[in-house]
């Protein structure tokens, strides 16, 4: 059966199809607008490839079930939106602490609380980084098109597996419900990564010992390791410790485990940044509007550029600093009261350099408004 792989696809459906292509075989979900299409599509697709879909009794349980499935060795994911994402935070921290791979999609809607359930927003930028309690490593990817949702979903699974970490795929309602024509790649060309499984001697196995690259191999139940997994601070043997020297050592390994792998993790898109005087920073639908505004500004003779982090956390800060070095203004465009701005201000550390264009009314920010702000800030621009 040969069918064209070109199709009109909704962002959320692209996410589901990409998850299947990446090898996801378990989905634990709970309905919530505007992410429900992912669960619906997964419930349809997973059984066709021998996977399991389950709608759990609540958001907390769905996160627990996803981690449970992954503990069993199966690639697993869930999707949710603001309120549900809040509820998942404790178990998300458990996955970070125990280093269980899993993928969590957060399709952002207006908040706080029930907020604007059907309207787009980007108010979870900080929650994806700091939502669960305590210091923890986390990776957040933020696509801005249907095609990119497909690619970044696959990448989310691969990073999650290779680095043994929860990975969050974060995009706003507009991107999730966007329908675009996409060419899906030939499944044979998709690169899939699997976690390292423990294969050495059972006796004396230390499930959290650093093999050198910061990422311990995982013990699969049934393989004879009979190891212990706990959210308590644990030493290399997997059992709890309160010894300050042990805690210091194992937490340094946990918090620093991405350091050796930043080449794998960092990703961004840069448009006209070489000589940009006004550098716009944005993600998701706001970045698409910003892209148009930058092109219009260029056409009008203004030196504008766009830096779009695709990996939002850890923020690709070295790359950003390079691209922002020559700009006199960094304009952060975001659909919240100013969250990404906080990170950009930290990185620029120059009074007056960072300008904000923010909105939390449930409406996207259009190119015209961004262009107008670029004009205000561009010294050599035309009115």
């Amino acid at each position, binding site marked *: 059966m040969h069918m064209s792989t070109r199709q009109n696809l909704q962002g959320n459906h692209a996410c589901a199809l990409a998850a299947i292509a990446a090898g996801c075989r378990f989905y634990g979900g709970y309905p919530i607008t505007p992410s429900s299409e992912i669960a619906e599509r997964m419930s349809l697709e997973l059984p066709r490839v021998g996977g399991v879909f389950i709608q759990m009794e609540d958001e907390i349980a769905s996160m627990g079930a996803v981690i449970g499935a992954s503990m069993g060795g199966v690639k697993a994911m869930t999707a949710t939106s603001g309120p549900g994402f809040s509820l998942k935070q404790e178990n998300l921290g458990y996955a970070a602490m125990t280093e269980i791979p899993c993928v969590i999609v957060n399709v952002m809607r207006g908040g706080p609380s029930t907020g604007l359930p059907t309207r787009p927003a980007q108010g979870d930028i900080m929650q994806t980084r700091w939502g669960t309690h305590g210091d923890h490593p986390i990776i957040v990817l933020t696509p801005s098109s249907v095609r990119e949702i497909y690619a970044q979903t696959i990448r989310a699974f691969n990073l999650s597996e290779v680095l043994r970490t929860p990975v969050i795929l974060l995009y706003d309602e507009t991107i999730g419900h966007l329908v675009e024509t996409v060419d899906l790649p030939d499944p044979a060309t998709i690169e899939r990564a699997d976690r390292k499984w423990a294969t050495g001697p059972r006796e004396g196995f230390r499930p959290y010992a650093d093999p050198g690259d910061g990422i311990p191999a995982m013990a699969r139940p049934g393989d004879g390791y009979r190891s212990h997994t706990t959210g308590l601070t644990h030493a290399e043997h997997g*059992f709890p410790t309160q*010894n300050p020297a042990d805690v210091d050592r194992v937490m340094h390994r946990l918090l620093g485990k991405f350091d050796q792998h930043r080449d794998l993790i960092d990703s961004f898109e840069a448009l006209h940044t070489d000589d940009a005087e006004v550098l716009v920073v944005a993600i998701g639908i706001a970045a698409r509007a910003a892209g148009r505004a930058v092109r219009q500004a260029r056409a009008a003779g203004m030196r504008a550029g766009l830096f779009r982090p695709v990996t939002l956390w850890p923020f690709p800060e070295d790359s950003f600093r390079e691209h922002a070095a020559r700009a006199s203004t960094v304009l952060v465009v975001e659909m919240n009261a100013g969250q990404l701005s906080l990170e950009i201000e930290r990185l620029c550390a120059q009074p007056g350099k960072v300008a904000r264009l923010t909105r939390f009314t449930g409406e996207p920010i259009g190119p015209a408004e961004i262009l107008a702000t670029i004009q205000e800030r561009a010294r050599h621009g035309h009115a």
Partner: protein
Amino acid sequence: MADTETSPPTNVLIVGVGGQGVIMVSKVLAALCQLHGLQVKQSEVHGMAKRGGSVFSHVRFGAQVWSPIIPHGETDILVALEWSEGLRWLDAMRRDSGTFIADTQQIVPPIAFRDRRPGARSGYAPQSPAAVLEMVGTGFALDATRVAAGLGNTRIANTVLLGALSTALPFPVEGWISVLRDFVPPHTVAVNLKAFQAGRDWVESGSRPAEEAARPAGARVAVAARGHRLEITEAWCKGCDICVKMCPERCLRLDERGLAELANPAACTGCRVCEWLCPDFAVRVLDGLGQPVA
């Protein structure tokens, strides 16, 4: 305002493991200080109400106390309700003038402090009380738990140590007794007062060599009349008394250390009720060859 530089507070650090009564000792001391019109600050780490969790309480008192935390190396008196916890905090003491008061009873710490590698030796502190006492200014190492067991209740070992502590501080004994009365349950006042006095007597009866820690043996095996053996792993026994009271033949008892032993091997039928109901897996009924009964 008193000058803490010229009249520094007295620093008492009380340490132990969960369930031993560290907080009770520090509360009694704090209340006593308050009774004497002194300022007192008490800060503690506790909350895991389990055996083995490390618990400690700082008590600072004097004319004026600002910080609730004892600066490192300035502990005047270290009271340890458990031996290895005492060793853990030795560094906190004043090197020459500090007083060390410890129960030599060992509670083998939980998984949090164990090396799990196969064949690894127990991580329990190997230092003998005599060796430790040489490292401190003034030291008292007494088997308070055994003293308490002699009074019929191992739970009041903390009061024995409180009695020992009372000799190291300048408060009149009547005050200690009055505060202690207020702090213990009414029906245990008499036994607690005895324990307190026993602790005082131990110190006041003059210096004596440090008592050897009562290190629980591995396993004690008794041969019963019908050829089988009863094995009691003493390091695991917590003296809960269940096997003693549930034995249909009443052939077990708690020894002077509060650990289970087979007192009447002739009566033992090998019924295994003791093994089944031991919450600590310390009792096993083995056949004549030392294998689990088949």
